[in-house]
């Protein structure tokens, strides 16, 4: 009887290196609820997954490099607009390389899953090695409102000597770092009066300083009528009326630094033939002497002959007293005095009857005047 003893090939076990190549992938998307945009948007820049298996055979029989897998399958669990992802529509799988391309955005707050299973069949030994990979995918909602209202200036000092006429005061609503489009924004300007902000009146009486734009981001005002106007702008996005932002700006008439002085034009030294004494009030600023000084100041000139009371001479920048007012006693010194007060912006003239206030008008227009802003000092 013949007897046999079999021999067989012995292979060292191969080593495997399995990896999932991720190209342009983000597992967590962000959904900007304000813009309605995904970040990143996979319909524009898809997420791509490529499974790769490298087999290293110590015996050198299996060629080095990437090896194909068998029984490969993807489980793709995602949802867009409530619809589960479908192959060919929301994602594609390359049958040769098993490359997965997702070109759909995941619904916010939906937890999806990506899973891959692949096998390697060792033809030499008939042994099967299995490889699995999985990740969760999701999408978070965020409202990138971060609203802020930017104000050009919070205080605007308007010098009467430099009349800007009508000018704009601007604000801008920002969402994040970008200006919010005007079409999406609401702006409301209000004015401070009697301890509260109220709507701006466009009746041409109460708010003469107002020109236009009370419901835009640029309100136009007229310097001539601005003495002290505190404005507040409230802004919000159409779709988020509860998220308001406010900014205030103070518009004020401001004279800045100036000096006033009196110059004797004649009669400072009294000679027998001196007929009168005359003096002029001058105002100087850093840039020079103020011309047309009565336009900006209320000036009263007084005269004192050395005894008795100060006497009123005139309202104006130039005053004159005749010789007859001079002191009789030659030992006495005479002098001019002056009271200089800043004039207000144009102020409407009103008449109050009981609890009601009426505007004085002429030809349909409100009459205005400029008045000293401080009380007269005695």
């Amino acid at each position, binding site marked *: 009887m013949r007897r046999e003893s079999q021999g067989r090939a012995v292979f060292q076990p191969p080593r495997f290196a399995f990896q999932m190549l991720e*190209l*342009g992938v983000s597992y967590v998307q962000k959904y900007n609820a304000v813009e309605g945009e995904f970040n*990143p948007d996979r319909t*524009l*820049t*898809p997420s791509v997954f490529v499974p790769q298996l490298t087999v290293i055979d110590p015996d050198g029989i299996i060629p080095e490099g990437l090896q194909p897998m068998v029984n490969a399958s993807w489980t793709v669990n995602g949802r867009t607009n409530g619809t589960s992802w479908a192959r060919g529509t929301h994602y594609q799988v390359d049958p040769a390389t098993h490359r997965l391309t997702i070109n759909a955005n995941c619904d916010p707050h939906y937890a999806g899953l990506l899973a891959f299973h692949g096998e390697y069949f060792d033809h030499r030994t008939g042994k099967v090695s299995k490889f699995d990979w999985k990740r969760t995918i999701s999408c978070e909602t965020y409202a990138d409102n971060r609203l802020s209202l930017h104000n050009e200036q919070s205080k605007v000092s308007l010098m009467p000597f430099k009349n800007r006429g009508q000018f704009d005061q601007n604000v801008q609503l920002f969402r994040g770092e970008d200006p919010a489009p005007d079409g999406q924004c609401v702006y409301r300007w209000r004015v401070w009066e009697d301890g509260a902000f109220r709507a701006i009146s466009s009746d041409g009486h109460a708010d003469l300083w107002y020109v236009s734009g009370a419901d835009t981001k640029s309100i136009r005002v007229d310097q001539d009528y601005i003495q002290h106007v505190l404005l507040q702008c409230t802004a919000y996005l159409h779709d988020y009326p509860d998220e308001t932002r406010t900014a205030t700006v103070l518009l004020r008439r401001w004279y800045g630094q100036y000096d006033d002085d009196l110059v004797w034009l004649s009669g400072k030294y009294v000679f027998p033939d001196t007929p009168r004494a005359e003096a002029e009030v001058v105002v100087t600023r850093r840039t020079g002497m103020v011309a047309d000084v009565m336009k900006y100041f209320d000036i009263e000139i007084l005269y004192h002959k050395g005894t008795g009371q100060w006497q009123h001479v005139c309202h104006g920048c130039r005053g004159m007293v005749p010789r007859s007012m001079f002191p009789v006693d030659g030992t006495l010194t005479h002098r001019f005095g002056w009271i200089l007060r800043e004039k207000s912006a144009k102020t409407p003239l009103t008449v109050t009857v009981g609890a009601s206030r009426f505007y004085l008008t002429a030809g349909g227009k409100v009459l205005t005047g400029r008045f000293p802003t401080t009380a007269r000092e005695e």
Partner: protein
Amino acid sequence: MKYYIIKAELAGRLGLTAYRYGNREAGYLVNQGDLVMCDIGQESGNGQLKEVSVSQARQFVNKL
């Protein structure tokens, strides 16, 4: 997120042609995450890329 259309040459250099929408003539649509390895300012100056809005990016994809 910012989107850019980059020239095919740059896309090739960055290895993006395999998985981003585009072609040799039109260029490739990428996002800022794809460009972390390059100097966007310099490439922009060289005319290799231009930033596009989301709507422009959609138009680009739809025209391909």
